[in-house]
């Protein structure tokens, strides 16, 4: 049964490029966020991460207003880049403003975050309401989706991961002093101001990239939970990075597999809940360790126990969800794995015919199974290979407007 879970996930990932991209992006984002989460936890920046994430909505709305003229789904790469860059610049400016006002002691940091993120959020909502036709798409940023990740996002995440890892390796020692005590670091010759702004910039850029998968509301979880759990498991600075990354990776893989295997489970929230379970296990372990082995860290054993516990829970849930309606599930897998519901197929053709692309995108975003079955149905269609490829490419790029009308006509006739 356990083998079945992994086999299904492997099959889905290899047959659906869109899911493969989601997996790649989620792993990369997890590496970046888990690494930064160590600083977020040690420098108590959790609220600032949350604030930047919420203010990103203002940046996205501004980007859409500046760069989008037609339907969202037909946007070119240049326009996507425009929106992303606008959001990044917007978030970096908000992060710097929060950092500047608190460093200059104009107002305290939590007050600054409270003011700036609410103002940015309000700006976002006002701008969105100016362009009503995009409201639905913009609100999809609230929750994100692994299926909303394009090749461009993968490249962006790779660049971000390289920059963050290089910055952390290069400033590893100064950052230790910076986290320990800012004044002490300053006197020791650490450029605390630039390091603070660098950290805020990295956080802002990471949040913008991670929003696509996790959404504005959940992204802060990635920036807090791995670091918080790792701190409970070790008392060594460098070990914290390794353990946080391990927790992030296990959380992402577990969440993605669960959301793929268990029907209708959204990926982002499932990953976050998985990481929360890991955190709770880490709290439990640290209590037991302090009680029965006082003064000892046992980081390796602790990480093993906590992650092992999570994997056991994950396997139990997966197995339960598959085993419970044993016959029904088997039938459903057999039937569903070979054919798409007629109503879904009709909806697909209808959407293409009427150029109602935004509702099609929403359906694809919210239902991973739909994409998979759609791709399978397309492969079995009695049309030219080239035409099939065009449709499969459209699933990949979401550029449904590029599908020639002749193909749409053929699909209608076939129905």
């Amino acid at each position, binding site marked *: 049964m356990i083998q079945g879970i992994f086999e299904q996930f492997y099959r889905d990932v290899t047959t659906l490029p869109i899911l493969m991209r989601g997996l790649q992006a989620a792993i990369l984002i997890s590496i970046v966020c888990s690494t930064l989460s160590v600083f977020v936890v*040690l420098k108590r920046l959790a609220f600032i991460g949350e604030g930047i994430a919420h203010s990103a909505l203002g940046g996205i709305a501004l980007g859409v207003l500046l760069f989008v003229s037609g339907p969202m789904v037909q946007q070119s790469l240049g326009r996507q880049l425009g929106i992303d860059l606008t959001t990044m610049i917007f978030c970096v400016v908000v992060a710097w403003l929060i950092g500047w006002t608190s460093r200059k002691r104009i107002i305290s940091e939590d007050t600054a975050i409270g003011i700036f993120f609410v103002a940015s959020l309000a700006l976002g909502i006002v701008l969105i309401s100016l362009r009503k036709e995009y409201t639905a798409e913009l609100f999809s940023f609230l929750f994100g989706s692994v299926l909303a990740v394009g090749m461009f996002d993968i490249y962006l995440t790779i660049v971000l991961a390289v920059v963050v890892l290089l910055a952390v*390796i*290069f*400033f*590893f*020692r*100064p950052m*230790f*002093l910076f*986290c*320990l*005590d800012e*004044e*002490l670091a*300053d*006197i*020791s*010759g*650490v450029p605390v101001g630039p390091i603070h702004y660098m950290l805020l910039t990295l956080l802002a850029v990471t949040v913008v990239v991670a929003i696509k998968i996790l959404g504005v509301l959940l992204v802060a979880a990635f920036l807090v939970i791995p670091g918080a759990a790792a*701190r*409970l498991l*070790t*008392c*060594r*600075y460098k*070990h*914290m990075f390794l353990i946080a990354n391990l927790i992030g990776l296990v959380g992402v893989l577990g969440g993605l597999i669960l959301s793929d295997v268990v029907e209708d489970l959204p990926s982002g929230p499932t990953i976050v809940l998985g990481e929360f379970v890991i955190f709770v296990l880490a709290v439990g372990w640290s209590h037991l360790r302090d009680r029965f082995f006082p*003064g000892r*860290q046992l980081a390796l054993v602790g990480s093993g126990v906590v992650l092992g516990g999570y994997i056991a829970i994950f396997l139990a849930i997966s197995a339960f969800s598959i085993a419970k309606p044993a016959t029904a599930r088997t039938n459903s897998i057999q039937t569903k794995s070979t054919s798409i519901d007629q109503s879904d197929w009709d909806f697909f053709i209808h959407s293409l015919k009427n150029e109602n692309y935004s509702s099609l995108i929403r359906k694809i975003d919210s239902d991973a199974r739909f994409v998979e079955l759609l791709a399978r149905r397309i492969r079995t269609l009695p049309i030219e290979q080239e035409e099939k490829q065009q449709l499969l490419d459209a699933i990949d790029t979401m550029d449904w407007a590029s599908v020639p009308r002749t193909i749409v006509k053929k699909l209608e006739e076939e129905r």
Partner: protein
Amino acid sequence: MEKNNCDMTTHLHLGHQKSESDSTMCGCEDAVVCVRDVCFSYGTDPVLEKISFCVPDQTLIGVIGPNGGGKSTLMKLILGLLKPQKGQIEVFGTPATKLGRLRSFIGYVPQRFDLDWRFPATVWDIVISGCFTKVSPFQRISGERKARARHLMAMTGVDQFIDRPIGQLSGGQQQRVFIARALVSDPKLLVLDEPTSGVDTAGQVQFFELIQTLRNELKLTMIMVSHNIGQLIHYSDYLACLNRTLHWHESSKGLDVHLIEQVYGCELREYLKRQE
């Protein structure tokens, strides 16, 4: 790295020469720190007015004064964290705000701060972090430096806690760890900001004895802010009594109660009797 050290030593030496000539103006020779006519205010409230003094090489200066008297501000000015509105401060013959890499020749022991008890660092990590700014990002810390760190930990009596998380140590033990940390980079000047606050009487006596040992063995120049006037008069060479203005006092002349009362603005005889 050796070349680097060499450059620093030359710079320090040159600095000394410069400060000697300058310090003649303030009436002291061989000064490590030279403060001249310094005024500082936060907004419109003056905190320090016309402060002038020199810290000669290998002396221990005790800084006393009431809360809000400007002690911490003066320390921040000497450490180059603040810039004086008037006057000049030179450390090693260089303006304090332009010390750059020379700053690593200042050891600083902070006032007991609210250290997160789960901070991911052992005592060893904290002590060795004292030389982080002396090595390049990817350079391994030399065996020589590690040996020095172990020696300093033995001197300060924290070698038995080497693998313990810093958060699990008591306030007094943490303070000694931070002294070892400040000394590991081989500083010429050690600044201690109220190091005995929150430490019990027995701990304070032990602490001042440790300071005396370190001073004799490492030939350090020290500036120490403390409220413990009794111990400070015994161990320091000069007392800088600070309450917006400065009253300079030679410790060897004993305790001038009138001066202390003037600085603190209250009756101290009874308090000092009790402390004795």
